[in-house]
């Protein structure tokens, strides 16, 4: 299993790029010009994130540096140790279904403080990449068509987030 995961991590990006290039050459796509045309949008998207991320990072850094975060994780640690869940990552698990920028900021902060290659950093990375912001997506998608009663959709979404978090914990603990 570990070998499969390593192989995927190593190969998927080069494989995908090769596939795209083969298709492009096959269909006589002017690769470089097309690349530049699509790539231009990337800059604007990253710049547009700045106000959101600055706001969240300030809030999280203040929360952490004031000692409030340590009080919170210290309180949670005895319970979370029972299931081998690193207490530092717990705020991410809670915020992830609620706020996308908040989750991004917490993940960044965890990686900055604990290192990208620590257990905490790797767990945060996996959790961030494998789940999505349930409540935001429900609001946007259902709101766009005027749905007021979401029924069981919220429960399914949150359940998926929970499974993603637990799966991330188990997978990361075993693999690394």
């Amino acid at each position, binding site marked *: 299993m570990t070998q499969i*995961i390593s192989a*995927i*991590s*190593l190969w*998927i*990006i080069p494989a*995908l*790029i090769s596939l795209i290039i083969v*298709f*492009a050459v096959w*269909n006589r*796509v002017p690769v470089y010009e*097309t*690349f530049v045309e699509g*790539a231009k*949008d*990337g800059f604007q*998207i*990253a710049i547009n994130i700045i106000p959101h991320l*600055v*706001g969240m990072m*300030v*809030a999280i*850094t*203040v*929360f952490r*540096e*004031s000692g*409030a975060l340590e009080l919170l994780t210290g309180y949670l640690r005895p319970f979370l140790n029972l299931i081998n869940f690193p207490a530092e990552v717990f705020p991410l698990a809670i915020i992830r279904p609620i*706020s996308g920028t*908040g989750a*991004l900021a917490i993940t*960044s*902060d965890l990686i*900055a403080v604990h290192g*990208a*290659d620590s257990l905490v950093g790797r767990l945060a990375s996996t*959790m*961030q*990449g*494998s789940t999505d*912001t349930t409540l935001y*997506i429900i609001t946007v*998608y259902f709101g766009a*068509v005027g*749905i*007021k009663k979401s*029924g*069981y*959709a919220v429960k*399914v*979404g949150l*359940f*998926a*987030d929970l*499974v*993603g978090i637990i*799966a991330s914990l188990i*997978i990361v603990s075993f*693999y690394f």
Partner: protein
Amino acid sequence: MVNIIWLALIIIGIFTAAIQGNLEAVNLAIFDGAKAGVTISFGLISILVFWLGMMKIAESAGLLKIISRILQPFVAWLFPEVPKNHPALGYIVSNMTANLFGLGNAATPMGIKAMQELQLLNPTKDQASASMSTLLAINTSGLTLIPTTVIAIRMTYSSANPTEIVGTTILATIFSTFSAIILDRWYRSRQRFRKNQ
């Protein structure tokens, strides 16, 4: 919701620091936090620019269309109530393809278009139909193959091996999406059972 979280973090932080007598930490934190926000966003530029460029090539080369065609039978199975050549299916497939390649900005408009088409088929206009719930389940469980943003953050903070988490992320995504589909199916049959009572 986001407002509450943001306010809570700042207010609790300042309050805690004041009580513990290390208010200078707050002053430092504000500027460090702002700097980090910009640093991370700048770190995202490189990956986003590269990835969107590659995706444009993929689109022009017809690769996305082929992937959509491969996904079609799977999508038809997931959304049995939607008639076979209904435009909703096309948008759903585009939404899933965009999600797979981490194109959140393309996935959302496609998803909304799909919702609009599904609303035309919806018998109860203010309540989510079964198809809508399924579409939502697929989206919120996260369908990304390559977590480009996370990789970019790891690179910004000097990871020795930024992409090592890709395999674990894909595996975790498979579990979360799979569980979403299963639970969604269960709720669906329960609702159908109740309707037939």
